């Protein structure tokens, strides 16, 4: 182990790049955690499922690894750094997602009219904001009005553009947002339609913005000032179980219990949201500096037998994939014109050649599930796996498919060539996101080389996140194969990533059948959930057969929680669902 330290140190000194230094820092700290974890090995008989009465009092610290921007308003925030804080003090929306990601009533229940255009929300009564005002339909309408205003500075226009009259209001043609109709303080009606076609939307509830905005608190501000206002950054108001006490910019936020919370006063006295160094998270948990943290797999395995921490797992709402570059973006739509992987048998051979299960076990400590559809396995729309080709690791099958397609070694250089006898080389591009990126990319390249494909890492290196996506997006001619990941929304509609006119359709895959199915998934018939599920089933089967990308796995998020903190519900993106139910046992 000591020798390893020195190797890293020497490597670090030769290399002046800061990112490498940081990488070594992480390696070192992980090694230390390993060292520390082993000393605790003797005492690992802890039972983590302490049951008992929810006790009152205490403070729980929720940790996160990246400094927060401090835009504490749902309509304006940008990243998870702020959304975690928002969930603590203002986590309630009109609608929430259930276990199968179906929308469920929360702050409101709703009706959808026969024609599919009008949604009526019936709000909970007696819900209070932290400033003592009551939550009413005014607050719901206010959020939509702000977000459709021409001066709105936040990034969430796509969540309100389906409201009738939104485009007119945003372009300045109309003052009123015509699609919104306040019936009484607890009832509000909204008319929605597809922003381009004007058709009714079966997934309108998922698309629509359902976080209210405290009108009494923010109503007096100019719209373009909200993002910078003290009302958002220093003393924000929410309707969650905890209210904001003090904000140390970029570092921590302290919250105290809000006794008038609509679902009952919280058990704890307060919550602290704290930014820490992610590479030391496991030790900070053991040390008691933080109580809840989403651990990287490499750290989770080192503490899984420590009785001061227990681990909770939950599938994340994302998947990683290896994509084939099948064409290019011509400025308006995708054109599938790259002959390299035009033969579907070659794409399938690649899928057979790559040991996806082995990748998961070697590099992610098994935290994840191999998937064959580009969808979250939690979703109600996830297809029946038995109807999908499993592409299990099978180099022989891969070789057969390549032979069949005519990709054989015709010049005896040890690598397969194209059917025309030309050299067949594959550039694989991957991004440098954490310590497993590089060995994992090498593993994939090795898998491909094992079946005779002359694959190599592009320029022999990994790419920085921003540069990676810039190059993938502009269809850089050197990219043949690339490894990316997508976050998913609760709604299974593939629009945005899979249509012919989607810039983010990075494989540049165009298929008439797929276009038709995606449209059907949003048609009037799709208001029937079974019909819609069936359409997506067919679509996933099509993608599974055509394979414009090889889905790798759906990750499992692992939350490390201090053993005396109970009542925590892990969720797809964080462990902040229902923080009013948290309690401490000591």
């Amino acid at each position, binding site marked *: 182990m000591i020798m390893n330290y020195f190797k890293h140190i020497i490597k670090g000194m030769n290399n002046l790049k800061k990112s490498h230094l940081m990488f070594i820092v992480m390696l070192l700290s992980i090694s230390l955690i390993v060292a520390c974890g082993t000393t605790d090995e003797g005492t690992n008989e802890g039972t983590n499922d302490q049951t008992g009465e929810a006790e009152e009092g205490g403070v729980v610290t929720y940790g996160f690894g990246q400094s927060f*921007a401090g835009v504490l308003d749902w309509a304006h925030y*940008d990243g998870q750094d702020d959304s975690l804080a928002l969930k603590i003090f203002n986590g309630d929306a009109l609608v929430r997602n259930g276990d199968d990601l179906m929308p469920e009533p929360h702050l409101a229940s709703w009706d959808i009219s026969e024609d599919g255009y009008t949604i009526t929300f019936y709000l909970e009564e007696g819900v209070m904001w932290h400033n003592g005002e009551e939550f009413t339909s005014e607050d719901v309408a206010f959020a939509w009005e702000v977000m459709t205003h021409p001066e709105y500075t936040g990034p969430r226009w796509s969540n309100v553009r389906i409201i009738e009259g939104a485009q007119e209001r945003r372009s300045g043609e109309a003052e009123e947002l015509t699609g919104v109709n306040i019936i009484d303080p607890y009832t509000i009606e909204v008319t929605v339609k597809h922003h381009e076609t004007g058709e009714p939307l079966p997934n309108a509830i998922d698309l629509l913005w359902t976080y209210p905005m405290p009108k009494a608190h923010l109503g007096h501000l100019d719209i373009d000032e909200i993002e910078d206002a003290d009302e958002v950054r220093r003393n924000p108001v929410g309707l969650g179980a905890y209210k904001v006490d*003090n904000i*140390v910019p970029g570092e921590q936020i302290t919250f105290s219990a809000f006794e008038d919370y609509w679902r009952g006063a919280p058990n704890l006295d307060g919550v602290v949201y704290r930014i820490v160094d992610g590479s030391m998270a496991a030790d900070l948990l053991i040390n008691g500096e933080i109580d809840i943290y989403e651990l990287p797999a490499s750290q989770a395995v080192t503490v899984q037998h420590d009785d001061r921490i227990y681990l909770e797992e939950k599938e994340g709402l994302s998947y990683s994939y290896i994509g084939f570059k099948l064409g290019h973006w011509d400025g308006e739509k995708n054109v599938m014109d790259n002959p390299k992987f035009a033969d579907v048998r070659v794409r399938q051979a690649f899928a057979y050649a790559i040991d996806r299960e082995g990748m998961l076990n070697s590099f992610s400590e098994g935290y994840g599930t191999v998937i064959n559809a580009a969808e979250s396995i939690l979703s109600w729309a996830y297809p029946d796996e038995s109807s999908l080709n499993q592409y299990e690791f099978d180099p022989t099958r891969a070789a057969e498919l390549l032979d069949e397609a005519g990709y054989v070694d015709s010049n005896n250089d040890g690598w397969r060539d194209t059917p025309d006898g030309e050299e067949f080389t594959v550039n694989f591009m991957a991004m440098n996101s954490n310590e497993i990126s590089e060995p994992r990319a090498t593993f994939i390249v090795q898998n491909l080389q094992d079946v005779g494909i002359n694959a190599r890492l592009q320029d022999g290196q990994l790419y920085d996140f921003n540069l990676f*996506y810039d190059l993938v*997006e502009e269809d850089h001619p050197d990219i043949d194969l690339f490894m990316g990941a*997508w*976050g998913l929304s609760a709604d299974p509609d593939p629009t945005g990533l899979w249509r012919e006119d989607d810039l983010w359709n990075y494989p540049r895959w165009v298929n008439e059948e797929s276009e038709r199915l995606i449209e059907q998934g949003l048609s009037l018939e799709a208001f029937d959930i079974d019909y819609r599920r069936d359409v997506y089933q067919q679509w996933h089967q099509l993608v599974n057969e055509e394979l414009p990308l090889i889905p790798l796995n759906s990750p499992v998020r692992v939350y490390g929680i201090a053993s005396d903190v109970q009542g925590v519900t892990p969720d797809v993106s964080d462990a902040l669902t229902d923080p009013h139910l948290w309690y401490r046992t000591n």
Partner: protein
Amino acid sequence: MLIYTLRRILIMIPILVMISIVVFALAIAMPGDALSGQIDPTSSNPEYIEEMRERLGLNDPYHVQYGRWVAGILQWDFGRSFVHRMDVTEVIGQRLPNTILLSVMSLIITYILAFLMGRYAGRNPYTIGDYSIQGLNYLMLAIPSFVAAIFAIFIFSFQLGWFPATGSISSGVTPGTLEYYLSRIKHAALPALVLGALTTASYTQFLRNDIIESSQKDYVRTARAKGTSENRIYNKHILRNSIIPIVTLFGFDIASIIGGAVIIETVFTYPGIGQLLITSIERRDSAVVITITLMLSISTLIGNLIADLVYGIVDPRIRVE
């Protein structure tokens, strides 16, 4: 002296212009921009990104962007941080007090350690004590700061529990109270110790060598011949003269006071300028990166200027006319 000072200040202007061009060009040369990482289909779309690029002026020719940036700076407007969604001056303003606290504490630690060790080694040269101090110095010089930082966290925070491992403040303390200031100092102590201890080497050697050199000078021999006690010779005659070159080094430390320690701050998650610089580079927040780099360049220039001037004051022999 006045003319010398003015000339030094005037010559800084073209240097500053050149620095600004280099810094700006480097920021432009970074691959991607703050928006290229925002390809999250759940909360954004390509139209929004294109619209924001247009609004932020990222599609303008480089010279237009440079002109706009310089014009802004002349009006004390350093642009807006895209990641933090606030003015750059405010982002930096939030971090600067932390960094200054950390740097001042680390400098004090450096000076105290260097003074004690340098004095001892200079007074007892070529003894075991001197060699151990030198050995220790070279060891500290050789250990990379991030390694020292991680070991310090491991030993003092995790094993002994004396200091907190991360952050700049405990939760639940009210700003303005004594407890608040103590908590601030406690959080800065460990990074300051690592930072301070590792940089003592050059100071110690400076002081030691100067003391040895001075102790062979004629005025020391005269003092000895007059029967002055050894303590008095070392503390009064030699030390005072030997501290002069050290004092001038302070000018060079000004840049580090403001710039903080990029690596140490990042390892300790201490929210100062150095950590801000790293996260801003990672997230392509170029307005912040440019401003910090410019700030560091300027403070280095000013530090050098002060060093030169102080040198002239404390040592009249080298005053330039």
